[in-house]
């Protein structure tokens, strides 16, 4: 049924709160008919100009000169711009990046100049006509080497950069953040340990691979204002960062975000949109479209930074973990304006979801001449858990304890003391662990499908808090229309994770109207939409949800107060159910459509009360405290944690090394599943994206050059690679300040997959292959080298 018919009567809809329902997605029909607008679909008419970006072919070099004259002379080229007149810095947590490089390029692909032309073809041809003279510098391609004091310096001006007060760069080095945990006494604790293991993991870079590449159209008008249409997770952050970098008022930068064809973090913050704006400023009044090719998508926006993790873990004879030492060297890439916080988040999460009394962690964000590391689903958690959850298994086996039992003993429960010193809130983690173990048939082996196959099972836990500044806020408004329907204004972006649908569910539930009476005021437009920090961190259901609920409550109060006045009743006796205001006392009823805009008449034609109903609401956490820079201890490091478990059963082919994930189980505690179907959709999608990064994905970087920048050689999971079966288990231990008890779930289903698979392979083969991707080749050669096969 395509056309929604509005029938504001009780009979047409059941009186159940839509929260907890599998409400159908409100964007589904548009997307299924091809009507949904993505940024490249917007029509601009024949005046649209096109841009292409000249990029550095070197990983690290000084720019000696740029000659744009030949490009400017090509017929059809309207403008060529370099960083010469744009000294401003961009950055979310650390301002370390120019819009176009000025004196130096720091990674292959770094933007050096922008070309605007009448067609994309002409702009592309002009790329070859820009002459740049470089002086190549020695590059840094390994974070451990980059962290050394004598490594070539990539950001000599690090000490001058504007930086958030919870990030600690080390000027004069390549370390842009050093986060420390010093808790208890690890040196003493090692002596008490029955078993200690030490491992090093190299986790490669991967990329988000949204099916929609980054796209931006910018128009700079002669009054100094800029409009930017972009495929973005963060309209307001883009407005803010770009305005700051250009010295403009935030009011003069307008960002419009349509549907996003996949983000996963790659479209958070600012990457290619800033060059698009500067290019548009060269041709005032005309829109300029910039789109990335798939190859550029792979390495010129954000990537998930590589990690070298050194982990030491020890337990006593009863299996209680006593101490942990971590050194994380994050391969942050050329600019770490966003990635510095991954360093921090992994630091304050560095025990994994376990209670560990003695912890020493050093988490370093290291500049390298590699593609730019930024937010990727999990924000450091997948990379970090990849090592920790394998160590947990190995340590358990050292003391001959079942890894699930080992986790039962150590995993966080309500009241557990966390790595930052505070206590764990109520959590369903133990329940997730037990349910995942049971669902995968832990302890039972199943028959392999042939004589040259081996089967195994593996499990891993995770935790993650939204990584964001302590004062990241949300706001929303709710207005009623003539027919009683709601228009909900919000600033969160629909990336496919169901933002609009759950917002509508929560608004409907709070206000008391049927679910399909709610519309979302989209696209998000910073000119009209209420502020939202960013669509990241799995924070929207919780934070934006609270704002939507507060706005709905405000609207609800206005309506009830109005009708109570009209009926001369106590507002406490009134309610709104299925779009009708009802009184439990007098049993009066009035449809919302009779009051939403026009108010109510007073007795005897003596005037009116009320008017258009517009509710407003906001939410911002107020209780996050700082952490001591030397110890990482603090009263409240984060807003909350979502926890969960994954278990997989794999089959390994001894003749080819191929690992097949037969089935997967995911059990997560998201407090309250506002829309269980969409929650399960995240669990399925996250598990498969996790499988893809575990088995197939990894950047092949050689001296800063990406050797596999296309789908041909950067393989992602296809329909033939998804498991036969995924069981998604919802555990609900309510979040005290979450709307209807909800907290986030978007990122978490991807976090434990790599170690779950590694543990399963080890179970299958008796040989541990610890660094992803667990490609057929890697597994086969490992089996060969271990003498398992010949």
């Amino acid at each position, binding site marked *: 049924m395509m056309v929604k018919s509005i029938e504001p009567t009780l009979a047409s809809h059941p009186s159940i709160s839509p929260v907890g329902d599998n409400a159908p997605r409100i964007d589904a029909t548009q997307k299924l008919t091809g009507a949904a607008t993505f940024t490249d679909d917007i029509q601009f008419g024949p005046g649209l100009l096109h841009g292409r970006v000249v990029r550095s072919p070197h990983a690290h070099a000084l720019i000696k000169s740029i000659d744009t004259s030949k490009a400017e002379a090509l017929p059809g080229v309207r403008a060529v711009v370099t960083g010469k007149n744009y000294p401003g810095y961009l950055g979310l947590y650390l301002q370390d990046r120019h819009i176009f490089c000025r004196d130096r390029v720091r990674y292959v692909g770094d933007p050096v100049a922008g070309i605007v032309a009448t067609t994309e073809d002409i702009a*592309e041809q002009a790329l070859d006509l820009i002459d740049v003279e470089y002086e190549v510098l020695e590059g840094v391609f390994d974070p451990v080497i980059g962290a050394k004091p004598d490594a070539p310096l990539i950001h000599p001006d690090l000490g001058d950069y504007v930086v958030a007060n919870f990030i600690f760069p080390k000027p004069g080095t390549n370390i842009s953040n050093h986060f420390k945990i010093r808790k208890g006494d690890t040196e003493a604790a090692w002596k008490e340990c029955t078993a200690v293991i030490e491992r090093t993991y190299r986790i490669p870079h991967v990329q988000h691979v949204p099916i929609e590449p980054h796209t931006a159209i910018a128009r700079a008008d002669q009054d100094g204002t800029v409009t930017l249409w972009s495929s973005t997770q963060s309209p307001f952050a883009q407005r803010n960062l770009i305005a700051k970098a250009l010295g403009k008022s935030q009011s003069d930068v307008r960002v419009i975000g349509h549907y996003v064809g996949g983000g996963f973090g790659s479209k958070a913050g600012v990457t290619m949109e800033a060059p698009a704006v500067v290019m548009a400023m060269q041709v005032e009044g005309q829109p300029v479209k910039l789109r990335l090719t798939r190859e550029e998508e792979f390495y010129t926006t954000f990537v998930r930074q590589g990690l070298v993790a050194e982990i030491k873990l020890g337990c006593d004879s009863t299996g209680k973990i006593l101490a942990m030492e971590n050194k994380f060297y994050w391969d942050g890439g050329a600019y770490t304006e966003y990635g510095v916080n991954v360093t921090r988040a992994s630091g304050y999460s560095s025990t994994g979801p376990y209670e560990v009394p003695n912890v020493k962690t050093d988490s370093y964000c290291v500049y390298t001449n590699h593609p730019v590391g930024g937010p990727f689903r999990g924000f450091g958690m997948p990379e970090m858990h990849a090592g920790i959850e394998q160590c947990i298994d190995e340590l358990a086996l050292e003391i001959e304890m079942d890894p699930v039992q080992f986790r039962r003993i150590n995993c966080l429960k309500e009241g557990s003391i966390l790595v930052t010193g505070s206590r764990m809130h109520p959590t369903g983690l133990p329940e997730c662990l037990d349910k995942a173990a049971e669902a995968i048939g832990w302890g039972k082996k199943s028959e392999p499908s042939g004589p040259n196959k081996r089967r195994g099972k593996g499990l891993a836990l995770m935790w993650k808090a939204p990584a964001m500044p302590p004062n990241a806020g949300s706001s929303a408004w709710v207005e009623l229309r003539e027919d009683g329907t709601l228009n909900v204004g919000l600033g969160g972006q629909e990336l496919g994770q169901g933002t609009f649908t759950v917002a509508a569910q929560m608004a409907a539930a709070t206000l008391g109207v049927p679910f399909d009476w709610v519309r979302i005021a989209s696209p998000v437009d910073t000119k009209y939409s209420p502020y939202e920090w960013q669509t990241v961190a799995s924070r929207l259901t919780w934070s934006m949800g609270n704002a939507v609920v507060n706005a709905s409550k405000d609207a609800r109060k206005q309506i009830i107060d109005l009708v109570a006045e009209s009926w001369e009743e106590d507002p406490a006796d009134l309610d709104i159910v299925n779009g009708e205001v009802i009184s439990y006392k007098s049993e009066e009823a009035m449809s919302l459509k009779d009051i939403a805009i026009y108010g109510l008449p007073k007795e005897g034609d003596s005037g009116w009360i009320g008017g258009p109903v517009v509710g407003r609401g906001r939410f911002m956490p107020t209780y996050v405290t700082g952490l001591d820079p030397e110890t990482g201890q603090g009263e409240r490091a984060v807003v909350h944690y979502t926890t969960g478990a994954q278990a997989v059963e794999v089959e390994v082919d001894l003749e080819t090394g191929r690992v097949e994930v037969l089935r997967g189980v995911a059990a997560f505690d998201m407090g309250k599943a506002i829309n269980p179907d969409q929650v399960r959709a995240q669990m399925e999608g996250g598990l498969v994206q996790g499988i893809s990064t575990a088995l197939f994905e990894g950047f092949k970087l050689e001296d800063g050059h990406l050797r596999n920048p296309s789908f041909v*050689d950067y393989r992602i999971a*296809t329909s033939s690679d998804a498991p036969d079966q995924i069981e998604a288990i919802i555990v609900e231990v309510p979040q005290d300040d979450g709307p209807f008890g909800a907290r986030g779930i978007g990122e978490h289903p991807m976090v434990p997959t790599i170690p779950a698979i590694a543990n399963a392979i080890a179970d299958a083969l008796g040989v541990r292959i610890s660094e992803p991707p667990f490609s057929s080749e890697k597994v086969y050669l490992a089996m060969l080298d271990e003498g398992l096969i010949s």
Partner: protein
Amino acid sequence: MADAHPGLPEFDYIKPASLAEASKFLVDHAGEARPFMGGTDTFVRMRDGVWKDRYLVDVKHLDGTSELGFDSKLGLTVGAGVPMNTLIASPEVQDHYPLLAQAAKTVAAYQLRNRATVVGNICNASPAGDTIGACLVYEGIMIIYGPSGRREEPLRTFFKGPGQTVLSPGDIALAIRLPIPPAGHAGRYLKLGRNRLSDLAIVGVTALGYPDSETASGFRFRLALAAVAPTPLIPIEAEKILAESPLDPATIDKAAEAAMNASSPIDDVRGSARYRRMMVRNLTRQALESVVSELS
């Protein structure tokens, strides 16, 4: 790294009315003109900036390029313009050349197989070409139209190196003809990709076997290896072993070992030489076991 353009670079599309016209155009514009059929390899190379031809000459519709025909004496003629899906679906191919259908089915994905062609796969001359092995073991003959008219070229001598064939400017591959296969043959194509389906071949093994009273084993085998040498490779030593000894597991192992030793894979972004060699051995063994089992 990415010199890939957003789309195809500018070129002129030429649709000649006859083979003679096409061939003349290609000769007159040698070095800046190229024939194409399905285009799937051509367009990718043009977009990547590897090929920079000014003219792309569409030869799909010309004489002899669009037919798929079977003759009980001459065998199967696959026109250069016949999409792989058409070939796969053909009852004659399924009945008489099942190995070719099997191999074609592993190429890329369904959408691409509606454009990609076997002759195009051959002319692209990637050592990893999936259908080339089947065409080799079916003893295919290329039918070419050139400046001096039609000629035939056995597939065995068609390849000169990676991406290089005996075709010269002005040549248009019209079709491949596969003679009637040996009676009672069975075949298997095993392809190893990095993920389950849709990948290129990291290693590909084609095996065809048929009863032959003149051999010690009573069977003769033809083998072809993909992605482990500069061109598609026929491991002659392995074929010899299979003809000269009884067909038992030891012989199959020996043949698999010989196939491995005949191959000379390289280390590249897709796989290491070491792994590929082992996979030649293992997949050859598997392919032979499968064919032997079908023959008995």
